[in-house]
């Protein structure tokens, strides 16, 4: 197994782990963190798979940089909305979902 493929498979595992957390948890902070883990998994696949030829491909690096910027903005936005929801309703979960589940 080449190094690139190893990273790609790790990325897929991270993505699945994040997806599980994203669906399983009700607490919004956990779901936002799970989203970030899924994002990191995606980026690993992007960089890892493109290295198969033995040479480093610069394009995915540029893409991942852009992707990180997008993920950071989305995370910041989600955190603000979550905090506001907590101020207004006193809960960190969406209505109709229990924190224990």
């Amino acid at each position, binding site marked *: 197994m080449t190094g690139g493929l190893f990273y790609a498979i790790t990325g897929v595992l991270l993505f699945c782990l994040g997806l599980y957390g994203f669906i399983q948890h009700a607490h919004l902070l956990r779901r936002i963190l799970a989203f970030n883990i899924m994002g990191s998994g995606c980026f690993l*696949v992007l960089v890892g*798979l493109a290295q198969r030829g033995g040479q480093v491909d610069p394009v995915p690096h540029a893409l991942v940089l*852009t*992707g990180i910027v997008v993920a950071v903005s989305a995370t910041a936005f989600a955190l603000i909305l*979550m905090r506001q929801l907590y101020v207004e309703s006193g809960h960190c979960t*969406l209505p109709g979902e229990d924190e224990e589940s």
Partner: protein
Amino acid sequence: MSHLHAWLVAVDWIPWLLGPPLAHATLAFLLGPRLARLLALPVLVLGLVAASGLALRVLELGPQVHALGGWGAPLGIELYADGLAALMLWMTAAIGLAVGCYSLAFFSADDRRGTYFWPLAAFLIGAMNALYLSADLFNLYVTLELMGLAAVGLVALSSGAAALAAALRYLLAALLGSLLYLLGVALVYGNQGSLALAGLSLEANLLSSLIIALMTLGLAIKTALFPLHFWLPPAHGGAPAPVSALLSALVIKASFYLLLRLWFELFLPAINLPAAQFLGLLGAGAILWGSWLALQQRELKMLVAYSTVAQVGYLFLLFPLASFAPGAEAAWNGGVYHALSHGFAKAAMFLVAGAMLFAAGHGEIRRLGGLGQQLPLGMFTFALASVSLMGLPPSGGFIAKWLLLEAALASGQWWWILVMMVGGLLSAAYLFRVLRQAFLPTPADTRFRRPPAMLVGSAFLLSLVALGLGLWANGTLALLRVGAPFTEMTP
């Protein structure tokens, strides 16, 4: 007249569709709502001129390519517009202009919501324009995210915990959708080493099936395809009326457009029949379940939001209907035509619903009696939009359903005809519920406020366009044919 025509065709309009809305959004953030209101109309009118010019140019000169900043495809970002993109851009510009006029009257100058509405709406329109013009998978991801974030911000404009919960639910669904799409992009790049949509096509193998499943699932979440529509009704029904109009008419069409491009350019060699039939099945589920829930709603805007869930279903009938050679072109045309006519009709309906809410002071359908006398033009607009949503002649919705029926007959898939018939009857049932109530006599204890004329006027114009799409179908279909994947004429 011929000078104007020659000038419209001669100018390269593509940068004019991106720069002005993004500049407007940034300036609106920096300089506050007063200047944003002042700039809104010129920018939106310029957008409509640019979209019309681009449509004429594509019709006469064929698909257009624009290299951003003079940097071509392998290094820079290349933008591309064919007939389908030009039509979607024109729809965005026309509905954007009408919603802009409406919002000037809807949000007063010192309304707190107006402060955020203008920059977010301008970002939304800029992002959608960029999405329709993008020709590579990663650029499409970025525009998809920009559009999603702006849309969620708009949903959060309404105050209160319910609106925040709706916005968060929408944000989580949108983020999940775009990550699934992005993983698909990563696999495509790893497999093919290229991201340009043109010239890329998947082979039929296991990896391709995984890519198709990931990207289709992600975009289906964003388009609110049944049973992934859970986020749509609270977000679209709870937002202020102009926001609902933008989201229901335009935003879900953008992700559908991307799905269409992927299926018929990238995925086509690797698609099998069961996958297309499955998407159609979900579409049928959306039509029946969405219409059924629309019938149960008590709030006017929730009814219109569930109607969107149902109407999204017709869009997805395109996939099974276009998978057989006879009728493929009719199915393609019908699906796109449905996206267009639903856009105009649904925008008109949400805008007029906002005017009805303003007049009655509440949205409870049972207590809307007397609105027919108070808002005659408003109820006429609602009826015109309903005609298009039900698919009655001579509206754009009729042409769309006609083409889809033609495709179903040509390919012998009669079961979709049945679904469309039942869906049409159900939509008539839930829309007549509102119309009937509005024309009942006024209950004794109700007082009406007169909404500003602009609220009803801009909705009325949109419903006229929805009707006009049925009358001038030939020109629209000629534009749609430019660069379409199905070029053979149906006999």
